[in-house]
């Protein structure tokens, strides 16, 4: 067995892992990021949408990572009425994850991190109640990598958290099942707007999305939960029922994934251990986006870890500064969004149609950020049957 020593080992080279690694390396921390897959960024488990605000966190995204610019959204109610969110200018991108994730990893390397693909963490080393590193399989060689802190950034299944002893199992009620086709030959009404379709028949407790990646190319996906049938069934039915869009289309790629949409963890740290991103359920519960959340959490984690290493104290107590800061900066807001999700999932198709009649696009954006929920409560209260539900938002 080969022996290596680092300050920090990061398991997983998605946006969360790269964010932690880059920011740690910048602070002069000796960090190694391991990716079990042979290629960083593939296969994707993602609709690939992000807003410009993400660039404030990661810097200007190179044009080669960007498939399409987005200037708005169109949201269909079950009755077929649509709410248009038109920004009049570009407000976000649909990226190419297999290029984007690699760029994030390049940036981590350039900042001074060591990165290794096709390197799987096989176990977590624990001594005296502290996580002290990992064992890893790199090119069929067994490595023992000693570290002061291990970061689990290994996605929704977070095997590394489990091995370390942090319970991150998702409750079924808090997991959306996602299925997606990347398709070409689509007849899209506006290929610079994301299109969402709601309805208890179309996508039980979720929605269908079309995220354009080019003139006639898009990610066409679905997230559902607590449904009678698998997500794939509903997506295939949607495509079958919308020949106007899909008649001449072809499937270029098939994706699937579980999306944590709630159940935020009070505690995300152990002695010498910390979890970020999907592994720590850090996802917006209403739209299921995790890119930005993983990036922010990675920055907070890097800040806390470097301070703990400087202070020579990587105990759970010292690292719990990460819990505190994440909850302050993101958790409180996301908890509100989770409440919104819990309310919307109880709405009937009739209720959704009613909302489509009265709400404007701007409202929907604010709601998805966890803001102005009192306004939504007010609208719901107009229907006596929904009063109790509305109170949940206030």
């Amino acid at each position: 067995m080969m022996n290596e020593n680092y300050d920090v080992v990061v398991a997983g080279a998605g946006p969360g892992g790269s964010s932690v690694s880059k920011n740690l390396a910048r602070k002069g921390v000796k960090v190694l990021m391991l990716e079990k897959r042979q290629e960083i960024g593939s296969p994707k488990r993602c609709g690939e949408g992000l807003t410009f605000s993400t660039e404030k966190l990661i810097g200007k995204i190179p044009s080669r990572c960007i498939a399409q610019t987005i200037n708005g959204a169109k949201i269909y109610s079950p009755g077929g009425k649509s709410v248009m969110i038109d920004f009049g200018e570009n407000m976000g991108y649909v990226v190419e994850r297999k290029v984007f994730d690699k760029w994030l990893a390049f940036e981590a390397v350039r900042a001074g991190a060591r990165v290794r693909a096709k390197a799987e963490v096989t176990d977590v080393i624990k001594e005296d109640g502290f996580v002290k590193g990992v064992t890893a399989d790199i090119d069929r060689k067994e490595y023992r990598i000693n570290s002061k802190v291990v970061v689990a950034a290994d996605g929704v299944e977070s095997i590394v958290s489990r091995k370390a002893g942090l319970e991150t199992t998702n409750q079924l009620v808090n997991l959306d099942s996602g299925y997606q086709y990347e398709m070409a030959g689509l007849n899209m009404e506006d290929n610079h707007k994301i299109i969402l379709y709601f309805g208890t028949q179309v996508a039980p407790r979720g929605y269908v999305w079309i995220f354009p990646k080019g003139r006639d190319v898009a990610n066409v996906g679905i997230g559902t939960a607590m449904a009678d049938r698998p997500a794939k069934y509903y997506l295939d039915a949607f495509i079958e029922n919308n020949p106007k869009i899909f008649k001449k289309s072809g499937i270029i790629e098939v994706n699937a994934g579980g999306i944590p949409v709630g159940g935020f963890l009070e505690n995300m740290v152990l002695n010498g251990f910390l979890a970020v991103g999907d592994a720590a359920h850090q996802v917006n519960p209403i739209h299921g986006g995790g890119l930005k959340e993983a990036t922010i959490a990675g920055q907070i984690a890097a800040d806390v870890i470097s301070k703990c290493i400087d202070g020579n104290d990587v105990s759970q107590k010292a690292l719990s500064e990460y819990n505190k800061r994440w909850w302050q900066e993101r958790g409180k807001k996301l908890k509100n969004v989770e409440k919104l999700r819990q309310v919307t999932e109880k709405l009937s198709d009739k209720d959704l149609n009613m909302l489509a009649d009265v709400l404007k696009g701007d409202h929907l954006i604010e709601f998805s950020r966890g803001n102005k929920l009192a306004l939504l409560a007010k609208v719901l209260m107009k229907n006596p049957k929904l009063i109790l539900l509305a109170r949940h938002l206030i």
Partner: protein
Amino acid sequence: MAWKVDRKKCLRCGACVSVCPKHALSLGEHGLENDRSKCISCGICKKACPAGSIEVEK
């Protein structure tokens, strides 16, 4: 008990792994693996699977 995964349908996405209350499931070299000594046939994995690749009979 009977637990089955259809490996032609499974996309190795890990949704089932993330909800398994007994930590019985894992993604290994040959795809999804179930440690039968831990599995209680609760069927939660089947409900989480977006591809409909898991069958569980109690």
